[in-house]
């Protein structure tokens, strides 16, 4: 199996008469995109498309998912054929709140330092569903709309000349035997409404743990339906750009032998957690690695799943490093994790999600303002009279992504 990735860098983004790329400027035909999104799902009542550029005084509220525009130029399964990626832009879905876990993206100011999406050109799809649509249907409609909109935009640019093409090779047999064998365990949240992830179209509640070709994982094989606290949900964009997988593939055969990816879920019941951890450890052992990197999604009860995995792997003689965020309280003086294990002796911290931040008012606000106080990481007094926001980092999309995409960390002072 081979996967060719073609990348085209988009330098600027704006509305235009057609959705098309000219040079490195991407224009969006707003009316056509609205009609496309509204016309493909009868649950959708209204669609508003907005453009937000890096550095602009714009705040996006109740962002649900972020998707990188991509289209298959050849082949139609994830992980094979040719994929065109529009670099530097993303689709963001928003609209009235479904649960509590949607988040904030600021395109400028202090909040912009914390979200990887603040530096991308964003096509924001604001969706209202018909009155009476049940919450699960609401989530499903928005998820599908975001994916289709991103695919639609990329498809209009299918004939561009890419800036670079990479063949993603991954062959563990021709690798220097002296290189350390390294596996990767990717924990996917899978707990019901707004806490689900989809692997090859199926909910991660079923069919996991499993092994998966890492190229499938980053080529659309994993989709987020998951809006657990905005800071540490793994958006679809993060799955598409999984920094652990891209680095492991990059250094494969040079610095290590990347022996494989195991996906595991994060169920809600204790017995299921134990069963998933045991099966995931067994799958990792089949890959015979010396070490394994484990990434997490969510917090609280997933900390218990993480500790079970680390205990199981270390006791099987597989050395581990795990990536986690912290909930150390606004003052940083509380315990950071809900569970611990002595085996968890090599953790990477991607930041304290409880840290508070004041976000100054923005000239333009996209999304439902009154819902701010209900976001996880928001407070009843979050919205200041001047339009400023006081939130925990929790509320900022991608701020403490536990795939380790960003550079934020936390230390004891």
């Amino acid at each position, binding site marked *: 199996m081979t996967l060719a990735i073609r990348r085209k860098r988009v330098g600027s983004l704006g509305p235009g008469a057609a959705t098309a790329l000219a040079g490195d400027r991407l224009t969006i035909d707003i009316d056509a995109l609205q009609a496309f999104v509204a016309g493909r799902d009868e649950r959708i009542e209204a669609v508003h498309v907005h453009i937000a550029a890096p550095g602009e005084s714009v705040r996006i509220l109740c962002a649900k998912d972020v998707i990188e525009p991509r289209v298959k130029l050849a082949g139609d399964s994830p992980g094979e054929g040719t994929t065109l990626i529009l670099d530097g832009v993303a689709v963001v879905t928003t609209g009235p709140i479904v649960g509590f*876990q949607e988040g904030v993206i600021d395109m400028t100011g202090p909040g912009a330092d914390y979200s990887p999406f603040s530096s991308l050109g964003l096509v924001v799809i604001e969706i209202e569903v018909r009155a009476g649509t049940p919450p699960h249907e609401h989530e499903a409609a928005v998820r599908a709309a975001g994916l289709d909109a991103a695919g639609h935009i990329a498809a209009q640019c299918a004939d561009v000349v890419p800036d670079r093409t990479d063949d993603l090779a991954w062959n563990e047999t021709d690798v220097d035997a002296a290189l350390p064998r390294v596996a990767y365990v990717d924990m996917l949240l899978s707990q019901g409404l707004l806490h689900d992830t989809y692997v090859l179209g199926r909910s991660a509640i079923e069919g996991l743990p499993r092994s998966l070709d890492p190229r499938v994982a980053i080529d659309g094989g994993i989709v987020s339906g998951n809006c657990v606290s905005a800071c540490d949900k793994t958006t679809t964009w993060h799955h598409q750009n999984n920094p652990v997988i891209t680095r492991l593939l990059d250094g494969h055969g040079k610095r290590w032998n990347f022996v494989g990816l195991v996906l595991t879920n994060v169920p809600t019941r204790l017995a299921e957690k134990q069963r998933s951890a045991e099966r995931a450890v067994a799958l990792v052992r089949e890959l015979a690695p010396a070490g394994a990197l484990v990434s997490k999604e969510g*917090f*609280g009860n997933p900390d218990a799943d993480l500790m079970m995995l680390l205990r199981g792997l270390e006791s099987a003689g597989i050395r581990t490093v795990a*990536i986690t965020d912290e909930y150390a309280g606004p003052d940083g003086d509380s315990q950071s994790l809900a569970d611990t294990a002595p085996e968890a002796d090599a953790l990477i911290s991607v930041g304290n999600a409880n840290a508070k931040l004041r976000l100054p008012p923005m000239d333009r606000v996209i999304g439902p303002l009154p819902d701010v106080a209900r976001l996880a990481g928001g407070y009843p007094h979050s919205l200041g009279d001047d339009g400023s926001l006081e939130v925990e980092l929790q509320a900022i999309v991608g701020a403490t992504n536990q795939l380790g995409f960003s550079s934020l960390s936390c230390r*004891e002072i």
Partner: protein
Amino acid sequence: MATGRIRVVHYLNQFFAGVGGEEAAGMKPEWRPGAQGPGRLIESSSDALEIVGTLVAGDNYMAERLSDGVAQALALIGEHAAEGSPLAPDLLIAGPAFNAGRYGLACAALCQAFERSLDKPAVTALYPEAPAVAGYRREVMIVRAADSVLGMNDAIAALVSVGLKRVRGAPVSAATDPIISRGIRQNYFAEAPGAERALEMLLDKLAGEAYETEYAMPEFDRVAPAPPVRNLAEATVAVVTSGGIVPRGNPDHIEAASASRYGEYSIEGLDRLTPESHQSVHGGYDPTYANADPNRVMPLDVLRELEREGRIGRLHDRYFATVGNATPVERAVRFGEEIAAMLVNVGVHAVICTST
């Protein structure tokens, strides 16, 4: 005296100020212009600062009436180096007090009070196991000192470097500076993304090389289970939930995550909760099913049955609710202690805690 240097007030006990030993330990705080004793070492170690005055007090005087003594010392600063005056300090340096008990306590307490009242930085130097450290490390910046005066030069260097950094607003952390960790987790931007740091750490761990975890495991406390309720049929039972079930409208504005409060709600005369009367405000689980039937999380319906059947004596007519979602442990412990005290006060014998 507009030298452009950072102005320091220095605190010393009677011994280091050269007043005397134990016989002078009862002296009240006094103000001495300029540097005294170790203060001269501080001044000579850096051109960037000058000591505008030295507070001197006796160990016993301070230890026996700490808050009074500290207030007197602050009053002396107000008298001799008031805000806006040419001597107004930018920084307080106290000690070094090494492993001294009384002296260390006075240094730490004065630093705390100085920062609180003047909103300017203060720094002291103590041996990590000195008695004052445990109680003050959270709030007071303490640089590491040896356990005796033999470590004077190192302690002075640390006081000056950390003190100057704080005045200049530069970040200070246990990772990069010779301070005793405050036990506070603080965010910062690392040089490399988390995924890259993780891979480098894994390679080090596999190669048997030294690596440093970015979060060391804390010690969890263990709660001993309470003894069983002897006769449930005579017991008054209450419900406490961290599942976020509150009267519709969320009258106490309990947050979806990181709850800063809990609510106490009447269930007097209610046979069950309904979607019209109650709702979930919890941000950490799918609330659809709890909103459709709040008894699933706050099981009033079943408890009323048990009450009618006589299997429990009486259901307490109020319940407590909060949201257990990213709530800092220290805050949750406080909620628990407060709620338990109130329930004990009104004669509740047993509590059912429901979570999600």
